[in-house]
């Protein structure tokens, strides 16, 4: 029990569980299954972008990818436009989404490296160009996704949403990558101290590049799935995932200062964030309160997390 409590991710799960219970209690248990499935589905999207963002944040202070929402929108728009509702082109569409991610990731790191600017400025500037590209491709048309894909993203297997299963699979892969491969060690080393990592002979540029690439690809795949899930790409579909991707990482127990990341925590945090919003909805509170709560929760968690590391020292 004590070792369990010392895990940084356990708190996000405890928080998620208590909000879940509070909501269930309010509705009298009427919507238990529906709420849980919805929570798992929407958490899965946050998990997908959150994992990518986590890899980037692991790289150390200042490393944040702000182009995530724009990448999601562009990938969703372009791939749906290409598939044009034909089920035979599902894999092609996926490949195109991944391609969008690869391009954005490469351009992001090219900017960071070539202009030597903080990653957040590079990715922010890039996100404006990507967003424009999405507006230009979208042209306000709403193209329906292929039926098979739409079904896959909205249906469940064994009572668990397919999307959640997919996200679980990717989470496991991310965990293995982070804890079992040299790459995971290297990015954690870079996050703790970039000069020390360089002096230890770690290929710093290569590792950072791969990380930004990975983040953009995960965002693109998430955009592709989200567009299919919601029956078409919308220009603002990524916007709420900007803060969400950062929030789930931070709340999940990953160090904001880098070097120490946490995959299970992202699940707890994603569930928590969705459940808070739906709880506030059930209580009949408006968008303003929801926004404020989201911001307040993030700041509180960062404050608490900083207290934790301060005690360690």
């Amino acid at each position, binding site marked *: 029990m004590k070792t369990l409590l010392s895990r940084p991710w356990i708190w996000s799960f405890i928080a998620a569980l208590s909000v879940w219970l509070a909501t269930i209690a309010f509705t009298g248990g009427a919507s238990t299954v529906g709420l849980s499935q919805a929570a798992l589905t929407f958490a899965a999207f946050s998990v997908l972008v959150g994992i990518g963002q986590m890899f980037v944040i692991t790289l150390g202070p200042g490393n944040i990818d702000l182009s995530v929402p724009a990448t999601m929108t562009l990938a969703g728009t372009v791939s749906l436009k290409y598939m044009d509702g034909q089920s035979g082109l599902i894999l092609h569409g996926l490949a195109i989404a991944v391609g969008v991610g690869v391009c954005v990731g490469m351009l992001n790191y090219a900017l960071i490296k070539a202009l030597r600017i903080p990653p957040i400025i590079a990715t922010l500037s890039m996100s404006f160009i990507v967003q424009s590209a999405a507006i230009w491709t979208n042209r306000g048309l709403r193209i329906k996704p292929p039926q098979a894909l739409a079904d896959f993203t909205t249906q469940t297997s064994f009572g668990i949403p397919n999307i959640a299963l997919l996200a679980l699979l990717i989470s496991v892969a991310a965990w293995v990558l982070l804890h079992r491969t040299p790459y995971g060690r290297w990015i954690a080393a870079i996050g703790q101290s970039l000069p*020390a990592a360089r002096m230890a002979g770690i290929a710093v540029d290569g590792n950072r590049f791969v990380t930004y690439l990975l983040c953009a690809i995960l965002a693109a795949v998430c955009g592709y799935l989200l567009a299919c899930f919601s029956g078409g790409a919308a220009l603002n579909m990524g916007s709420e995932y900007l803060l969400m991707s950062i929030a789930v990482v931070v709340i999940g127990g990953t160090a904001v200062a880098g070097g120490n990341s946490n995959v299970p925590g992202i699940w707890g945090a994603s569930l928590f964030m969705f459940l808070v919003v739906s709880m506030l909805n059930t209580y009949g509170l408006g968008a303003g309160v929801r926004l404020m709560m989201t911001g307040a929760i993030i700041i509180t968690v960062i404050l608490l997390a900083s207290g934790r590391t301060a005690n360690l020292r």
Partner: protein
Amino acid sequence: MTLPMPPAVLEVVNAAVRFGEVRALDGVSLSIHPGECIGLVGHNGAGKSTIVSVINGGLSPQQGEVFSDGTRLAPYGIGVARSRGVRCVFQELSLCPNLSIIENTRIMHRNLGGFGWRKRAAAIILASIDAIFPDHGIDVGGPVGTLSIAQRQMVEIAMAFSDAGQPPRLVILDEPTSSLDAGLAAQLLAHVRRFVANGGAVILISHMLTEILETASRIVVMKDGKIVAERGAGGFDHASLVEAMGSAATHQTAARRAPAANQPVLELTLPKGQPFRACKGEVVGLAGLGGHGQTRLLLALFDRHSPQWWPIRNPAVTFVAGDRRENGIFDLWSILKNMTAASLGDLSRRGFVQDKAEIDRGDEWKVRIDIRTPDMNNPILSLSGGNQQKVLFARALSTRAPVVLMDDPMRGVDVGTKHEVYGMIRAEAEAGRTFVWYSTEMEEMQLCDRVYVFREGAIVAELTGDAISEHNILRASFEGEAA
């Protein structure tokens, strides 16, 4: 001493400071009286910087008291120290590079505010620079960032001696001449004597023992966080001072071999001065005053041979950092992970790190280099500074790189550890590894097969065998001519 001493400007009684496992100060008492220049000497890590931090209020000791003019100061801090006229010139740059010299003067003197402060600040700082370094040619309206290193140091020194209504009474100079040429250094020391003669007090820290012997009225020798000797200036000569500091190196100079006419494994042509070259199995020393291009050469060698984009299996060089906190250890990690960070490629199969191989490697080096810990999975920060440094050595030596670059790696390491590491470097060199070793400690240079002396970014002299001596190195680093 027949006359009663005036009360001390500042007196530290029985100060003790610990950083984790390291005793930086171990019950040190020191009093500084008006009209005194105290020369403070000791090897790196002897505790000089720590006692300075205690005196200027930047560090509160876990134990000990501070008195001034006979009254106890508690609590003691930076503000109190400054109000008592304590000023300090630090080794690292302590001006704001983005501000002008006038604006820096404003920062240094809190009471300088009010309308027209620029004019007053300019007058104050200009008077001080003029007094210490006549013919300095520095524009006080210009930003600090565009000054040369020597000019910056001049400004910092002038800043410490400047008087904006609160005269300096005790000025601490920590290696003030490290970037000044001989003429400027002489001007500074002359000013120190004038200042002391007018009733001021100075603590002078310097590696240049001649400066200390010529300027100080009392010399305090520190070693391992304690004061080991304290005498009037006449009580020491060069040899007895070196002896009192305790030589860090053993006199195993016989182990040094004449460099074999070997194939060079590493070469680099510098923009000016002699080219650099190192052969297989050689220990090459980089000497000279601090900050004259030695670290830059090491970094250039490292950058040229280390991967940027793609991990390589057989690195050509590996690096042992001296500034552990800045570019050595990964402080969230265990000892084991810190040690294996540079050789993960060797410890992986099919892209996965092999736990068993990693643990075995850790246990092997724990014994070989004697890392004092019950468990290699303990956090790296649980180790003492010396043992952390051993982990960095183990990290470098456990790679397959044939060349080891060392950037003043013995900073803050205790004498015992130093000896163990010296032995290991010799043994590894015998086995065919090449070492390139930058150090500010003369004794360590005498352990090298060949020494390059640096001045102003260039190699100005190459010394081999018995020619490697403190005398020759100092001569070369000051005269800038080949010995």
